[in-house]
């Protein structure tokens, strides 16, 4: 490390982020019946309870459904939109791209409230539809960014080479451009799923009786009872998130995904 101050700050930063997580994970394995650190003994009891608790199981299924559908929709809209922005001849490209990236900037509570007013109150849609619209909008920046980054890195001569060898524009796109973009699209999808699955603000504002996501269900649970089952559920979510993040990192790399945003 050349710069000791930077290094020290980084260590402090990581500690602030990681220590609370360590406490949660540790308490999840307690044998006792309260959320307390240090845990009373070791057991997998609360993991069993979490799996048996029907609201959690139902909410998990709902959350996964929502996340996968929203991510798929975001890619279906975002990928062609990015191609049009980068390759097409459309006026006001910058404006269009800004529009697609705006969910990153607009506070989620504002988006949530707007969707609540317009879709659920105004159009009387069910909360699942509202959640799907909200989550899809939230995922769009990922789809646009990652596709854009992959496209910027791809050699424009690739498609020309395919054309020269006899491929129609569509064929060249399907045979060459799409495979080159595939790892980026795949990892954008994974990240979208994770982001959607873990989202609280939107899901909180758009909650309903029929369709509840896992984070909201867990929040409700914590308000009533304070036992280690929530810690166990959190630990499971954490583990799944880490696995997905590692896959995304291995396929594309976060630097490429987020590189565009910081610039």
């Amino acid at each position, binding site marked *: 490390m050349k710069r000791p101050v930077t290094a020290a700050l980084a260590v402090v930063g990581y500690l602030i982020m990681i220590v609370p997580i360590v406490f949660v994970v540790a308490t999840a394995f307690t044998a006792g019946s309260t959320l307390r650190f240090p845990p009373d003994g070791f057991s997998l009891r609360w993991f069993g309870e979490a799996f048996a608790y029907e609201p959690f199981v139902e909410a998990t299924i709902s959350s996964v459904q929502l996340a996968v559908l929203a991510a798929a929709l975001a890619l279906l809209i975002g990928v062609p939109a990015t191609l049009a922005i980068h390759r097409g001849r459309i006026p006001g490209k910058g404006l269009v791209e800004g529009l697609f990236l705006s969910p990153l900037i607009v506070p989620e509570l504002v988006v949530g409230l707007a969707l609540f007013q317009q879709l659920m109150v105004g159009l009387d849609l069910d909360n699942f539809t509202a959640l799907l619209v909200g989550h899809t909008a939230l995922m769009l920046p990922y789809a646009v960014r990652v596709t854009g980054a992959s496209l910027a890195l791809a050699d424009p*001569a690739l498609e020309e080479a*395919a*054309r*020269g*060898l006899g*491929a*129609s524009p569509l064929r060249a796109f399907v045979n060459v451009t799409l*495979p080159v973009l595939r790892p980026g699209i795949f990892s954008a999808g994974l990240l979208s799923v994770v982001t959607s699955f873990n989202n609280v603000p939107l899901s909180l504002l758009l909650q309903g009786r029929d369709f509840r996501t896992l984070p909201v269900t867990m929040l409700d649970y914590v308000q009533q009872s304070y036992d280690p089952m929530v810690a166990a559920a959190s630990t499971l979510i954490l583990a799944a998130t880490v696995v997905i993040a590692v896959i995304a990192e291995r396929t594309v790399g976060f630097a490429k995904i987020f590189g565009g945003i910081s610039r």
Partner: protein
Amino acid sequence: MTAAAELIGVTQRFGSFTAVDAVDLAVPPGKLTTLLGPSGCGKTTTLRMIAGYSAPTSGTIRIDGIDSTRTPPEKRNLGMVFQSYALFPHMTVADNVGYGLKLRKVPAAERRARVMETLELVGLAHLAGRKPKKLSGGQQQRVALARAIAIRPRLLLLDEPLSNLDARLRVQMRTEIRRIQAETELTVILVTHDQDEALEMSDEMVIMNEGRIVQQGAPQQVFPRPADRFVAEFLGYENFLTAADGTPLTIRPEHLRLAEQAPGLPATVADVAFRGVDLLVSLDVVDPSGATVRLLADVRGGTAPAPGSSVTVVTPDDHLVRLPR
């Protein structure tokens, strides 16, 4: 004899910039023609119009005598090697080379045979199963060549194919491309900014400047007789002087001779640089028009003249090139 490719009054404008300006060009079949010029002279734009990647603003492009001005690239059956090679990263070497054949619906067995035959031509049959990323720059270049050749194109177009290779490999590949051209008897159009490359490789060289063709011919014709000052400078003529009647003249440094006395031009030695095989002597010469000009003489053998000393410079008539005023 029909030209393999023919450009008639071809102009390409990008906004207010004219990249290619009313170019007329006939590319002889079965030969290697180079488009030579500095960056921005319009050579790559010309090649891209022949390939069909950009349509000319005006003019006609004929390929094998057929008007192809608006034909999309996939219908031209031309082989193109890009400066970046543009190999498909997700396909193996064999799949890259076979891609054009697959599109032409060549049966699998025949396709494999032709892929291997083409890879053998470029000396890469043993790497057929590799991905492009695992190859060196020189190998990638050969794959790009093989991919372009495999479709048996009407023209082979090479856009600065050697510029990304290191110096030694670049010189090797010149001979290699010549050999492949001779074996396949393809008509090749090669774009380059390197005059040595063009001189060594061309049957026909086309020198471009500011969107126009300034000189065209076999290297043996062009090199000793540059058409104007631009071509002369580009080909390494470093000495420019003026005749008594005002005609601009040029002569290569290696053709200037130093003598003890007249006949010749009186000169003062300004500087002497030792370069191993030769000496580069800078001279302040009084030319026939009476003006003092700085000339360079490339001297082999003999003793080095001392800076400041007076010498006589001989400009042999058969090496003195008259340029247009």
